[in-house]
């Protein structure tokens, strides 16, 4: 079927099939430029195709550029190159087959699931009704009076909510800590000499040094990781936090923040990608689709463990602040919760716990889960409405690099 040894030029069918295969991968959600297809064809020429394994290895080396696409590539390869004669039919049949296969596999990391969805036959989304014009008089608290949050509740975001989220962000933004980097930029008040610029000037002036250009360190905003509990007991705040996170992740001012967002109930879901959509309704709708465990039970310890194990090393670089939003009501695995919280606190610069229960005056950290968490957080703050989120901003700034504020609860 395939040419046995090194060939001068690829037989017409093979090149065509490789292009087809690339299109299947692309349809399945692997971003694949024409340049990589050309690279693959070029590679097939120089490598020769001695066996199916080599053919596979060459295509893999040229067509994949992300670790999470490997599984998808494997499945697509084995389905596609089984019988090239059925190409036309396969192109149609491939999609359901692969998605079936994925359904049987244990739940993978979120990207894989997204790709799995991409493999499934496309279902046209019904157009989102535009309700932005609706004027909601008491919008600020309109979501808070619902006991149970269902998926339907996330349909659209009212203009007032959107404005509130933006306002909130604008208030919070200046409070994020600026970290000094090793990079420098020219600045008239900088503390270091810019010798390169000085000599350039002096060369032009024939050796005179008239002034000394200076440089100063660049700063960057601290990276932020937000982990939000969306279990039943937290459900009335979830919507508010989703809007907050969307404003944070997608806003114009925040273009140079590095933000990762996660939600958890019984399991952890990475939602950064979904939140990047510009339109808040689309973004929230995508999050709702991606998450299966709205308003269910909560397994804080297990979800923190999952975060520590699968995500910490990937998202906790550059000494970030972690905002953990939960009520801390874990009943089962108290010891484990303490251990995981400690590991999390040690992997980031600041661990800030935002707890909606704190709005009750009489709140005292009696629950064992709450106490286990408290031992390891650097700040502990109430969040139950916009005002408290704005207070969060000030506290974030005040807490700075210290690990205080836990004392009064311990």
């Amino acid at each position: 079927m395939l040419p046995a040894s090194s060939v001068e030029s690829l037989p017409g069918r093979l090149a065509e099939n490789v292009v087809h295969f690339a299109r299947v991968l692309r349809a399945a959600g692997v971003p694949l430029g024409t340049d990589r297809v050309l690279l693959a064809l070029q590679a097939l020429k120089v490598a020769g195709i001695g066996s199916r394994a080599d053919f596979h290895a060459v295509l893999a080396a040229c067509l994949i550029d992300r670790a999470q696409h490997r599984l998808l590539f494997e499945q697509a390869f084995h389905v596609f190159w089984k019988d090239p004669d059925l190409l036309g039919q396969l192109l149609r049949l491939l999609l359901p087959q692969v998605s079936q296969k994925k359904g049987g596999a244990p739940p993978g990391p979120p990207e894989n699931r997204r790709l799995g969805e991409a493999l499934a036959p496309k279902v046209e989304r019904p157009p989102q009704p535009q309700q932005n014009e609706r004027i909601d008089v008491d919008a600020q608290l309109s979501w808070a009076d619902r006991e149970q949050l269902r998926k339907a509740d996330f349909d659209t975001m009212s203009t007032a909510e959107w404005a509130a989220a933006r306002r909130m962000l604008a208030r919070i933004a200046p409070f994020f800590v600026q970290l000094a980097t090793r990079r420098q930029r020219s600045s008239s008040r900088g503390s270091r000499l810019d010798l390169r610029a000085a000599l350039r000037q002096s060369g032009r002036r024939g050796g005179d040094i008239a002034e000394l250009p200076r440089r100063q360190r660049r700063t960057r905003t601290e990276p932020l990781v937000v982990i939000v509990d969306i279990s039943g007991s937290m459900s009335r705040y979830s919507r508010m936090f989703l809007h907050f996170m969307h404003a944070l992740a997608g806003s114009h001012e925040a273009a140079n923040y590095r933000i990762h967002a996660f939600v958890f109930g019984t399991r952890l879901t990475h939602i950064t990608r979904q939140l990047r959509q510009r339109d808040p309704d689309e973004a929230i709708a995508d999050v709702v689709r991606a998450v299966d465990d709205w308003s269910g039970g909560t397994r804080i310890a297990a979800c923190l463990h999952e975060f520590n194990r699968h995500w910490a090393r990937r998202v906790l670089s550059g000494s970030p602040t972690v905002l953990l939003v939960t009520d801390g009501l874990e009943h089962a695995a108290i010891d484990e919760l303490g251990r995981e919280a400690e590991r999390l606190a040690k992997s980031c610069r600041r661990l800030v716990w935002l707890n909606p229960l704190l709005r009750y005056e009489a709140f005292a950290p009696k629950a064992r889960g709450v106490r286990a968490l408290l031992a390891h957080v650097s700040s502990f703050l109430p969040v139950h409405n916009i005002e408290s989120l704005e207070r969060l901003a000030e506290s974030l700034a005040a807490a700075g690099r210290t690990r205080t504020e836990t004392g009064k609860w311990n």
Partner: protein
Amino acid sequence: MNAPTSIDATAALLAEHNYVADRQLATAVFLALKLKRPLFLEGEPGTGKTEIAKVLSAGLGAELIRLQCYEGLDVAAAAYEWNYARQMLEIRLAEAKETAREALAEGLFTGRFLIERPLLRALLPHAVPPVLLIDELDRTDEPFEAYLLEVLSDFQITIPEWKTVRAAEPPVVVVTSNRTREIHDAVKRRCIYHWVDYPSAARELEIVRRKVPDAKEALSRQIVAFVQHLRSIDLYKLPGVSETIEWSRALLALDAVALDADTVNNTLGVLLKYQDDIAKVQGSEAARIVEKIRREVAV
């Protein structure tokens, strides 16, 4: 350059220098050499990514130029820097000799005032194109990645004050990443990508045999079985191949003939680097695994 001409030759070249590569890796290396593309290796720490660059440099008889990445790595440390002291001296000399202004301005920014850093050095003429290892690219930041684009796609560096330095013959570039963050697609699409996975038991045994030839066959088998078993447990950091090799050496130094629970407990720190992981495995769990592999690996 005695570059290999086929996948088999590449595998043989790697094997000759005690690097046991699977077919897929050999293919990626071969394609990178043949198509003169950078090789982008991603994988968990300790799976032999850096080692490939070293082996290639030895196998091809090429100089190894290493650029270790870190956050805030800038052009002055990675590519080139002007030798300011010499430049200033030159200005003084020019004043003494009363050189014309234009001549001084031109003469001040030329090759002899340039301090070469790894990237630039890799592009300068060599007898054999050198192996440029850009190690742990994920540690650096996005601006540096963007800077690398010019180097990786055109094998050239533009020095604004002087000229564009272009490699007559492109170096062999190996880029590694531990995937602590996702590298930008623009960098990866210029490269041949390969995910370096943990090896299969058979390949790992071969690696131990080659790297620790003094270890007895039975012990090597047990070591590999133990490590392979550890990788199936829910640990914070799974042991890599380099840990397997280190552990084999450690056991050899302790004159161990076969694995037993005590020896494992005492040397677990060579394999696992997190206290949580050690606490999880130490004691009864280690004894259980040892018991299990004793049954599996019949001597």
